[in-house]
């Protein structure tokens, strides 16, 4: 039993923290000057941060749960909006399922030259991974894709999209879902991009009779559910680690504020009611950290055990995120509601993590069903 980071991971964390502190311009993000920074992205790639998301055999130098945790906690702590989670999702699926030609893209991805997105969610799917209505039908050697993908993070910026579509079965069957690796300029693809509340951009994608070559298929026909679930488990680890970083930073900002801000003649941190609430917050953030550790340590566990931790961690982190956002703003008072002050961005980004990969109630119910199974 050991809860220390390895030296390599500690170095990565330290370096990343310095890099992001240097490169992250929250004002620019908040004022909509850019959804994220190309300069940061290049620096992340150069430092090897993208590579840290892949295993050595995939061409990276990391890829374990604790690598994800270290990287994303720092991203969260900085409030950095760069679309790294899309690499975990789409890049992870390419690495896992791709043909030689497809995995060849990963070198560019790790080098920072290729942007990815995972086009899976649909207007009616909410957080269910198996609910896919988009259809791909075979057409000679190739495929024809039709359907709509909603709130695709980085969907407008990605050079390549990993797109799910149903090749057989009913809308909620686990069997019959296939994946395709698609460049962003295929015919019949309409993209409406827009800003997201926590930074970055999303897009609605509409495929209308989009012709795809046979080589676009990623993995086995109809067998994509299990790999998608695995990739989402990894992404949940990353996203909850990011939320953890966001919480740590929000907490630190609040502690600073409580120490500095005076009211009725003393720092408001001297008021016992606020002290106790702050202590409760601290306790819950430590709980959230433990939950992320649990998930990071179980990404390679058998499916049911892994998914128990996916839902447990997403539930607990989501619940804690709400507490941290609301208490941080409340303890700051009005200043906590302004976008001029950094907390605004952290609060927004943190809150939005609940709307990705399933929210607190969704995972609470899922955890109970998994436990009963």
């Amino acid at each position, binding site marked *: 039993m050991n809860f220390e980071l390895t030296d390599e991971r500690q170095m990565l964390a330290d370096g990343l923290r310095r890099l992001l502190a240097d490169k992250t311009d929250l004002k620019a993000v908040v004022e909509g000057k850019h959804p994220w920074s190309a300069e940061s992205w290049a620096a992340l790639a150069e430092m090897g941060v993208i590579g840290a998301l892949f295993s050595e055999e995939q061409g990276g130098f990391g890829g374990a749960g604790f690598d994800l945790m270290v990287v994303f906690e720092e991203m969260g702590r900085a409030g950095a909006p760069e679309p790294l989670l899309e690499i975990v999702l789409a890049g992870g699926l390419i690495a896992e399922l791709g043909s030689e030609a497809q995995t060849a893209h990963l070198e560019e991805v790790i080098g920072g030259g290729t942007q990815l997105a995972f086009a899976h969610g649909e207007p009616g799917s909410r957080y269910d991974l198996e609910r896919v209505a988009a259809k791909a039908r075979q057409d000679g050697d190739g495929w024809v894709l039709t359907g709509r993908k909603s709130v695709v993070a980085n969907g407008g910026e990605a050079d390549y999209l990993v797109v799910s579509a149903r090749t057989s079965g009913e809308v909620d069957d686990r069997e019959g879902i296939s994946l395709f690796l698609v460049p962003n300029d295929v015919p019949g693809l309409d993209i409406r991009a827009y*800003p997201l509340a926590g930074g970055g951009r999303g897009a609605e994608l509409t495929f209308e009779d989009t012709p795809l070559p046979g080589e676009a298929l990623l993995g086995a026909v109809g067998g994509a559910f299990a790999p998608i679930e695995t990739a989402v488990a990894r992404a949940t680890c990353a996203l909850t680690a990011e939320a953890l970083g966001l919480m740590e930073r929000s907490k630190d900002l609040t502690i600073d504020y409580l120490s500095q801000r*005076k009211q009725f003649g003393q720092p408001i941190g001297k008021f016992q009611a606020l002290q106790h609430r702050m202590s409760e917050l601290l306790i819950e953030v430590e709980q959230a950290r433990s939950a992320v550790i649990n998930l990071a340590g179980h990404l390679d566990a058998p499916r049911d055990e892994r998914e128990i931790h996916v839902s447990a961690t997403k539930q607990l982190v989501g619940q804690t995120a709400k507490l941290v956002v609301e208490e941080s703003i409340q303890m700051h008072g*009005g200043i906590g509601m302004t976008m001029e002050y950094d907390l605004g961005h952290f609060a927004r980004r943190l809150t939005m993590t609940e709307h990705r990969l399933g929210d607190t109630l969704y995972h609470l119910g899922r955890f109970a069903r998994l436990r009963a199974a």
Partner: protein
Amino acid sequence: MDLSYTDRQQAFRDELRAFLDEKLPKHLSDKVKLGQRLSKEDHEAWHATLQERNWLAGHWPEEHGGAGWNAVERHIFEEETTRAHAPRIVPFGIAMLGPVLMKFGSDAQKAHWLPRILDGTDWWCQGYSEPGAGSDLASLKTTAERDGDHYVVNGQKTWTTLAQFADHIFCLVRTRKEGKPQEGISFLLIDMDDPGIEVRPIVLIDGEAEVNEVFFNDVRVPAKNLVGEEHKGWTIAKYLLTHERTNIAGVGFASQALANLKRIAGAEMQHGRPLIEDPLFAAEVAKLEIALMAMATTNLRVVSAAADGSAPGVESSMLKVKGTVIRQEINNLTRLACGPYAVPFVSEALEPGSNIEPVGPAYAMPATAEYFNNRKLSIYGGSNEVQKSIIAKTMLEA
């Protein structure tokens, strides 16, 4: 004990409903319903419509141009207008300054300012908070030094809602630095067009800029604009904080928000069924509805006592705390109900006059912004922490 309205109250409610059916324009109620922001003209038009019927300041005494409503009638008005998605009456002139002038103003001040509030000549905003003096109003620093028949005002106010629309501001200012901090404060009326005033918007976490900073740099204010006695402004501030907070529980808003939440949860699908059929989601909605049913009655108890002449005491603090928490929780659940479509953040789509197509369902568009915007409910108007301290003090010293 009788939980229903009297015949007379019911008749008033029916009259109101008919009026709203006829006079509330659909384009306006649609905006309110969808959480879109209102323009200055929208507000002014609605105020004028109400004033035609003498209902803009219904709770004012008839001698000052009101309808002399008691607390129950005022409650019915608020309930019905909210239910109809009418714009909220901008409170600064009608609900705040008006009653202050009636109680503390000179005859000349009443004669001059009250009619201008009613006919819309003046748009008022409120200059209370300062950077560094939020809940702790007594520590405010904006100064007004007497210079002949003027005060010279210097300092800064903040969180001034809708200052961008306003042409006048009522301010708490420090007129004496010695003695207890509460005892050197005065209440001053200031023309926003005066030289030396600057308004800067504050962008909030919901992307909106409805609040502002207001800077005063050697602003000369005629001494006749002092309301009440010099150095006695604290009395007025306290009066406003405890007596004239309208609709503090926000039951009407909460009911509307809950109905909206239920509509959304009926429209959103989860596992192929309406989200509202998910037992866990339904239970969260149920908890809020049950709390709101009780709070509506708590509110009526207070309103009813006020109509019988009781001064509101600690009850208004209780309503403030519980009312804001319930509304915030409804906002939270509404955001969650919208699922992934709560994340797109097209702030311009909420601006008056926008015709940007929503990204997902129209109801999802304002959900995140409203959640964040309404965090303010527990902060302003005396933060919930301040209210709890007031309650505790009353309870433990009784």
